[in-house]
């Protein structure tokens, strides 16, 4: 990472409400190109809400979101993809009734049709399992394969920033390792990643920097390596 780059994503003093419930209470965070940044915290801390507000489905009541230098708060989710942001949502949300390949092609909806076959092959190079299952209906895949498909689909838009919401959820430990290896590979091949995780141990070991969220606020931030060894973090999230 170069030291002088402008942040790709800059969130400032963000407030989000669900009706009367104040879910996000003024968070500020940054992601620089080339980084893996993780947002860890307990259930209900507001991690997914933060991603959904950045990606577009939710609108902030207050605060700014700048992506690639432009203000984007309140921009529709379908427009954000065209700006280079892609969200791999919680619970995978793949198109169950379509084939694996069609799912990937839909991920490239925002791009010219001619470029897609090459991108599908690129995705297959990270997820060889998906190539084996190319013609299979996505709903019949195992949980781990569905997660790979969801990530592959998010990659198809060639995002500048890929946001992953709980990619390890519900997966066996060996699959979690695999998924995190792939996240590292994706990052090394040039994708910037904002990762939301409850599995703090894994998230901190793969990320460069981290933010800790608690009930709608960021309570700690810093280099992932440092947080991994911080006593407070260890007590609260790493169980030791």
């Amino acid at each position, binding site marked *: 990472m170069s030291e002088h780059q402008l942040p790709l994503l800059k969130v400032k003093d963000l407030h989000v409400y669900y009706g009367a419930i104040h879910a996000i209470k003024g968070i500020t965070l940054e992601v620089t190109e080339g980084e893996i940044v993780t947002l860890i915290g307990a259930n209900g801390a507001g991690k997914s809400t933060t991603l959904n507000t950045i990606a577009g489905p939710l609108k902030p009541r207050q605060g700014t979101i700048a992506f690639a230098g432009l203000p984007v708060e309140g921009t529709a989710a379908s427009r954000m993809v065209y700006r280079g942001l892609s969200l791999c*949502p919680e619970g995978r949300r793949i*198109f169950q009734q379509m084939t694996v390949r069609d799912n990937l092609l839909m991920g490239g*909806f925002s791009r010219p049709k001619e470029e897609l076959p090459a991108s599908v092959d690129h995705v297959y190079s990270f997820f060889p399992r998906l190539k084996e299952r190319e013609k299979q209906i996505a709903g019949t895949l195992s949980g781990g394969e569905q997660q790979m498909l969801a990530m592959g689909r998010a990659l198809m838009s060639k995002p500048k920033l890929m946001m992953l919401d709980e990619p390890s959820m519900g997966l066996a430990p060996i699959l979690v390792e695999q998924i995190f290896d792939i996240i590292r590979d994706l990052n090394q091949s040039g994708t910037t990643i904002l990762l939301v995780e409850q599995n703090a141990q894994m998230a901190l070991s793969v990320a460069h920097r981290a933010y800790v969220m608690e009930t709608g606020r960021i309570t700690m931030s810093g280099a992932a390596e440092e947080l991994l060894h911080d006593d407070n973090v260890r007590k609260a999230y790493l169980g030791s």
Partner: protein
Amino acid sequence: MVFLSNLVNGISLGSIYAIIALGYTMVYGIAKMLNFAHGDVIMVGAYIIFCAAQYWNLPFIVSLLIAMAVCTLLGITIEKLAYKPLRQATSLAVLITAIGMSYLLQNTALLIWGANPKVFPDLMNLNTLQLFDGQLSIKGEILVTIAANIIIMIALTMFTSRTKMGKAMRCVSEDRGAAELMGINVNRTISVTFAIGSALAAIAGMLLCSSYPLLQPTTGSMPGIKAFTAAVFGGIGSIPGAMLGGILLGIIEILGKAYISTELGDAIVFAVLIIVLLVRPTGLLGKAVREKV
């Protein structure tokens, strides 16, 4: 021979139901709502064709195209004004709005065209096909109806499987939120769905009134309900299901009227629906919703 003739009539009536059912099933699949005003869009389409042909003496095909254009606009407008503001509302609120929209269209038609039934002109002027030395005669309208049904079916299948908009529709129908994350404009997709359904309603109106030439403001409601039944019968949300459900319903109705009881024809149709739903709650071709956690 009588049976064969009844069967052909049944397929023809069923083809009309099928074309109407497509409108119901596509809107249900994509916007997850039952557009009970759909039957009345058929009636509007039929009146437009009637006016264009009778008062302005336009050729048949031009009249049909005008009616399709008017219905398309009407469908998009209804969606924009009545349904879109309720996108986040409960499905019951949307359902009641749709019923209200149905009455609004019927009563507007009553104001414009009056309560007296109009006799729909014979626009197509087709010969009757004689088969088996004249023992079986099939009216030209019936052949046109069945052909139109097949063409529409093929065109829609191609549209949803080949075109970008068609694929976007399939995504929105499966998971609206995920579709949006792919860059699909959900509102536009819903508009296009209403446009296609309403254009088909105009065609259905023309076919319906060519076979059953009495036109009044309530003309669309019974076929609308039957087509809705057909859509549920075949599996609501499924395009081939609407086609299958429509044709089976038409055949059951005509055969039921011919061989069991004329008065009970409609009752038989709905009884069959109840039985099918008891055995297969998702309809004939409906997909059971599986949730993987």
